[in-house]
């Protein structure tokens, strides 16, 4: 089981750093899954996480100039690692003008991801900074815990408003309440509501548009035949929503959410080469 990768292009490095920073804001520890063509940052829905789960997928070719991966076995050519994304974020933080960044899986005293940053210096040889990030290797028998979550049978699917606006609204609401209600309908309307003993605040968004979901067998989900004006809603922990919105460092190409009434909200944020799915369960 080996892994070696190298980034030489600064734009790719910054892009990768941004992705890692976003992940670091969403999860304290998560699973990094490496395959021949892709990297995944996965958080499965354990009670400890408050029931949220995350699935982030990147094509390695868009970031790495070199990428060699040998999985645990020929027929299971993948590697699953548990790590603290904040460590990776920190290691990449001071690599902003690096000549090259190499990432390697090593096992000197314990399994580590070794991030070696080669920095320009005034002297003849470059300066190198090495960060050894301890990781946990996840054995094959546990890989089932990390399967890609399926798109839930949602009631309403709607494009999100401009994330910056949504973020500032949610941040202000966070000061007033711990719980927020997201409701939306198939008419492109979304409301964010909080209600406390003293005050209730609702922000209305309209003309957001609803993404067309074509399902494989031709028949729609429970969204079919639904009254356009009827709102599907879910009460969720406002902090989780705020974390998701605050973690976005770049505006996504597409941002939408699927609401299963009173059950779960499924957010999908798509960039050119990264996709992020985030599930926030509804509170009782």
């Amino acid at each position, binding site marked *: 089981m*080996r892994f070696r990768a190298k980034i030489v292009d600064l734009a790719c490095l910054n892009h990768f750093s941004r992705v890692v920073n976003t992940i670091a804001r969403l999860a304290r520890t998560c699973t990094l899954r490496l395959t021949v063509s892709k990297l995944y940052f996965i958080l499965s829905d354990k009670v400890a996480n408050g029931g949220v789960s995350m699935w982030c997928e990147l094509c390695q070719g868009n970031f790495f100039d070199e990428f060699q991966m040998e999985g645990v076995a020929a027929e299971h050519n993948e590697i699953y690692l*548990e790590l*603290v994304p904040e460590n990776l974020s920190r290691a990449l933080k001071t690599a902003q003008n690096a000549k090259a960044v190499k990432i390697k899986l*090593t096992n000197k005293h*314990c399994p580590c991801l070794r991030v070696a940053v080669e920095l320009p210096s005034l002297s003849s040889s470059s300066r190198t*900074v090495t960060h050894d990030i301890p990781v946990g290797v996840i054995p094959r028998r546990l890989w089932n815990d990390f399967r890609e979550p399926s798109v839930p049978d949602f009631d309403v699917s709607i494009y999100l408003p401009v994330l910056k606006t949504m973020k500032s609204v949610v941040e202000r609401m966070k000061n007033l309440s711990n719980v927020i209600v997201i409701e939306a309908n198939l008419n492109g309307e979304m409301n964010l509501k909080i209600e406390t003993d003293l005050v209730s605040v609702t922000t209305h968004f309209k003309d957001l548009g609803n993404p067309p979901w074509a399902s494989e067998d031709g028949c729609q989900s429970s969204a079919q035949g639904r009254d356009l004006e009827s709102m599907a809603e879910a009460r969720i922990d406002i902090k989780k929503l705020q974390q998701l919105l605050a973690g976005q460092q770049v505006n996504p190409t597409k941002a939408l959410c699927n609401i299963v009434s009173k059950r779960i909200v499924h957010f999908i944020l798509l960039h050119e080469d990264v996709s992020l799915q985030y599930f926030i369960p509804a509170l009782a």
Partner: protein
Amino acid sequence: LSRIGDELYLEPTESGLSLRAVNSSRSAFASFLFAPLFFQLYEPGGPAPDTERFRCKVHMKSFLGIFRSLPSLEKSVGKCLILLKPRASRLVLQLHCKYGVTKTHNLAFQECERLQAVFDTRSCSSRLCAPARVLADAVVHFPLTLAEVTLGTGPGGKISLRNYMEDEAEPSKTMMTELCLAEDEFQSVAVSPGSRITFCLKEFRGLLTFAEASNLPLTIHFDEPGRPVVFTLDDTVLEVHLVLATLSDLESDSQPAPTNGVSHLPAPPDDFADDLESYMAALETSTYEGATGRPPSPTFPLHSPRTGQSDPEEGEEDEDGAVPGTPPHKKFRSLFFGSVLTPGGPGLAPTQEVLAEDSDGE
């Protein structure tokens, strides 16, 4: 100086005005000596040539408060006069500003013994000199909350800076960062092979900020672990010394480090370490405790508050700010402080670890 201690010691001497500070655990000391040429007027005072020079200390915060906003000071202040009035027990700072405005600050002071850490840079076996910029750039890779770093010779004849892991920290859970600087990044390198010292970052960072701002090269003098490390900045009108205690006990050093005495090791071939086949085999066959049966997860280490001893003489608690300073860790040897007393006073052996400030004991 305020990064080190809460009290500012002022000592006018023939060779200039010395400002000093020491931390509560006596493990960090700094002195700034401003030569007479630095000032427009410098009168160390004292009517007779061999009267004991007057020394005092003031509260750091009070002193700093006078110089609070540098940009506005630079614009409005023409002259600054510092006067020591022993009989009035006041240190007078007078700022002569624009438009005829004069701000006079009278600070209460305490008489004190001479604060002097015992050190000798000439007896240090190793010395490094580098532009402050190089060292500042090096230190930036370490998190602000990191307490200690280890400086020493690294693989390939380079100088390495590494975060120090406390004994209590588990290596499998802590992120390790190492920075290697080539010898030619330094202005001069004279280190004994295999030498390594561990010291606190906080005060060092403070000095680096000053050094960078004044564009002076920084010289690091060090010796064996346990003996203090001395950082110096030299200029025609200013001489700066920062003395930090270093960790003395290296036996329990849990870091993977090159063995002492071998400094020019090539980077060890680590291809074998990159193949985790044997690790995987062990993983698949062993059994684990716990519901999920996963290997222990690395968690982001929380910096645990220091449980060092507080200085018994002072009876103060170590301030537990967000960033720990050089702690009263039992493994850090406190710096030796000499106590220069007038004859007839109580004799203190120079190797005493305590600075006795007995303002009313003479």
